[in-house]
């Protein structure tokens, strides 16, 4: 029988709070982190964002380390979340037996945005920033901080990145390659992403409205979340917050940026995850949807949910109305929300929803609900047709 994978700790930082406690308070009090950009210098300031209103000095203080000019914002966010996760897990003295999978899409983009051109012209003054341009940087700095040496790697699959990090950490434990894994992801707000999504004409001018008929695009966000996963027999008497009980990753093989309009890609991902958990669709109590607020994603995901669950649709919501879309960090952040849902018996509302989509009859939860939650299904779909679904269960 395959080993069970338990979650013994988690940590998060986003526009709705630093740490689990602040995050939970924001979720229950409907406090969205979406607003006008304040730190990022961009001429696209008319677009709302979900920014963490703390500069690098502040982030370094929150991370509990001296500020260094080679530290990227992505790394600092990641370290803050990872430290909370490891502390919660009680694994501080056990890090040498841990592996790590980090994830990011933009890496140290605040550094590359500032210094790349100058370095390209041969200006060597800032060459110490170069390592931060690479995806590996933030993972390795976090691994170094904890003394993690083996099974260290980074996944970069656009918006499904940290969901994949969680899935593959769980797989490594189940395969017996590792006993415990620190898994998650981090991305910072950047002119790169904002301009990229603006060029694709999918930035929301009003703030994202997931699953609403008048939805008009994404709201870029930032943040980080990490989980500590352990094999059941490694946990002892420490607290378990949930189990990674199912997962899947598929590819739409359709288009670089758009999902299959009929939802078959998302349907495949959800179905395979249910299969891997050996459960029926009816056993899911809550779906934390990818729900980015784009015309394309929400329609295809809505159709997929309808096809999978039919008349037995569980409560579902997108939490991106709170956090914006934090890209690589989305999967891990939403994993934290899934665990909060399970541990507190809460379903978080889908903010900014008024009218259901014309094409498909699905209506998300719009008020905070209290009820026992045993199993949560969480979707993360990314550019390149990458679809990942995770299932978390109460233990």
């Amino acid at each position: 029988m395959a080993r069970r994978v338990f979650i013994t700790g988690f940590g998060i930082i986003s526009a709705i709070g630093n740490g689990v406690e602040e995050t939970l308070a924001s979720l229950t009090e409907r406090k969205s982190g979406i607003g006008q950009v304040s730190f990022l210098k961009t001429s696209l300031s008319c677009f709302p964002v979900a920014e963490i209103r703390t500069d690098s000095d502040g982030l370094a203080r929150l991370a509990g380390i001296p500020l260094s000019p080679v530290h990227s914002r992505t790394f600092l966010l990641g370290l803050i979340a990872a430290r909370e996760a490891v502390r919660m897990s009680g694994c501080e003295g056990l890090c040498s037996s841990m592996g790590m999978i980090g994830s990011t899409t933009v890496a140290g983009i605040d550094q590359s945005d500032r210094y790349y051109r100058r370095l390209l012209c041969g200006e060597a003054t800032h060459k110490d920033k170069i390592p931060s341009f690479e995806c590996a940087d933030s993972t390795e700095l976090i691994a170094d901080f904890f003394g993690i040496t083996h099974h260290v790697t980074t996944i970069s699959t656009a918006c499904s990145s940290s969901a994949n990090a969680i899935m593959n950490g769980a797989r490594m434990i189940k395969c017996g390659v590792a006993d415990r894994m620190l898994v998650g992801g981090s991305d910072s707000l950047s002119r790169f992403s904002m301009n990229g999504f603006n060029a694709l004409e999918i930035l929301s001018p009003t703030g994202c409205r997931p699953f609403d008929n008048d939805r008009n695009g994404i709201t870029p966000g930032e943040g980080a979340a990490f989980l500590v996963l352990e094999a059941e027999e490694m946990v002892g008497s420490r607290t378990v917050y949930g189990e990674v009980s199912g997962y899947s990753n598929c590819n739409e093989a359709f288009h670089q940026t758009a999902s299959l309009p009929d939802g078959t890609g998302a349907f495949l991902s959800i179905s395979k995850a249910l299969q891997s958990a050996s459960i029926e669709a009816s056993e899911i109590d809550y779906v934390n949807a990818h729900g980015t607020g784009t015309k394309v994603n929400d329609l295809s995901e809505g159709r997929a949910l309808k096809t999978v669950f039919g008349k037995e649709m569980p409560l579902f919501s997108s939490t991106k109305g709170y956090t914006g879309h934090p890209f690589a960090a989305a999967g891990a952040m939403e994993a934290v929300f899934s665990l909060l849902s399970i541990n507190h018996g809460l379903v978080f509302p889908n903010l900014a929803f008024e009218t259901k989509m014309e094409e498909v009859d699905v209506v998300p939860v719009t008020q905070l609900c209290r009820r026992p939650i045993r199993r949560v299904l969480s979707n993360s779909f990314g550019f390149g047709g990458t679809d990942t679904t995770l299932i978390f269960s109460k233990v």
Partner: protein
Amino acid sequence: MSKEEELIEELKTQIIDALSLEDITPADIDADAPLFVEGLGLDSIDAIELMLLLERNYGIRIEDPKKRREVLTSVRTMAKLIESKGQVKE
């Protein structure tokens, strides 16, 4: 060659360049053939690139998705729009 035909030839070259249609020459593009689905078989990302072409080269920006689809039907419909906006370069 009429002004419209001249503009069409110019547009064909610009389209080939903007969309990196390496093996295609202006002579291969039928001015009245559909640009999308059939004909050149362009997709939604190409549509964004063509709108950028209109904006950068002719100062024309169209927000309405329905109007965009109409304008981007063929090279000729693009040329007619440019002429109607008085944006043809002398």
